[in-house]
């Protein structure tokens, strides 16, 4: 079942690298917003989510802090990662076996040839409603995020590389000179 797929995804995929496409829909707005980029993570708590199109944004979890940077706004926000693990789907991806500490996991069956798992954050101050993870032959291939405002984000991974050679400082973030850094 998808629960076993998640368990061995966590055990066998210590780190991963993939290209992703993201589309964001909502009930009221016209067709969603498309974006794409590359994603990398290393358990626990380290990830680098680089948006290349339509504009440059970056989310980095360095194990201690969560950094978010927008190049054109030249602004960085930073906050502690442990608060974020329950609130950021990106942190869920790089979570280790304590995922069950923060999320209730439920197998929701087969769809589009993938085995789907639904993760619902425990505790009430989470900032999103649920995350669905679709597992296929290449491991985690699709993530579907449902927030508390009726927004749905669909992320498809491709060119998935499992346990790639580690790159030094990949999960470190140093704010560029002149950027406004906000937060603790």
């Amino acid at each position, binding site marked *: 079942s998808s629960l076993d797929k998640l368990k061995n995804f966590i055990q066998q995929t210590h780190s991963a690298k993939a290209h992703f496409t*993201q589309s*964001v829909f*909502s009930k*009221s*707005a*016209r067709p*969603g*917003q498309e974006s794409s980029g590359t994603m990398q993570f290393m358990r626990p708590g380290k990830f680098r*989510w680089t*948006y290349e*199109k*339509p*504009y*440059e*944004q970056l*989310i980095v979890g360095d194990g201690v802090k969560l950094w*978010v940077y*927008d*190049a*054109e*706004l030249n*602004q960085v*926000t930073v906050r502690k990662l442990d608060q974020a693990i329950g*609130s*950021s*789907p*990106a942190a869920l991806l790089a979570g280790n076996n304590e995922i069950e500490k923060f999320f209730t996991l439920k197998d929701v069956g087969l769809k589009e040839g993938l085995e789907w798992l639904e993760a619902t954050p425990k505790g*009430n*101050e*989470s*900032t*999103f409603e649920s995350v669905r993870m679709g597992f296929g032959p290449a491991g985690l291939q699709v993530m579907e*995020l449902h*927030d*508390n*405002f*009726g*927004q749905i*984000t669909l*992320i498809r991974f491709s060119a998935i590389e499992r346990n790639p050679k580690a790159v030094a400082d990949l999960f470190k973030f140093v704010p560029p000179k002149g950027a*406004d850094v*906000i937060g603790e």
Partner: protein
Amino acid sequence: CATVPEVALSPPAIQSSIEASARINAFQLNGRVGVKYDEKGFFGNVRWQHDVQNDEILILSPLGQGVAQISQNSAGVTLITADQQTYHAQDAETLTEEVLGWRLPLKGLRDWVLGRKAAGEATITLDQSGRVSRLVQDGWQIDYLNYQLSDGALLPQKLTMQRGNLEMKLIVDHWDANQSGF
């Protein structure tokens, strides 16, 4: 990052595209907003739906997840945070000041975002092709750094706003604007 081609238009074409943006009374924009006051603030992606009766501004994380929603209609303004706390007030200015610690000038912003002055006194500076380059109103200084053409209307692509120690930057990645009378 995505560079926006400089808008090359002859003066009469600019004139008509400025008039087109003057007729807009409903729009939806997708973009990014950054707010900074002293060492605090935030930034996020933004989706703003506006028509004559109401506004809905949704602040989103890069992953497209809602972080906060401000909606205004004739009954007043409601702010809902990501963890579903709800706050009400008569107008957005007092609501955001009380809850977020900075003042969102929504009343003026509805016009400023379109590159035009709101009702009341304002000082306007035009660039050599007749586009608004700076607007000073209600104690705010708004600088228009770039424009884009959307369905024949000349609309801002990047603007900064300043009032005292509060700075806002707004980048509009996509306009959907309908002009009255069509």
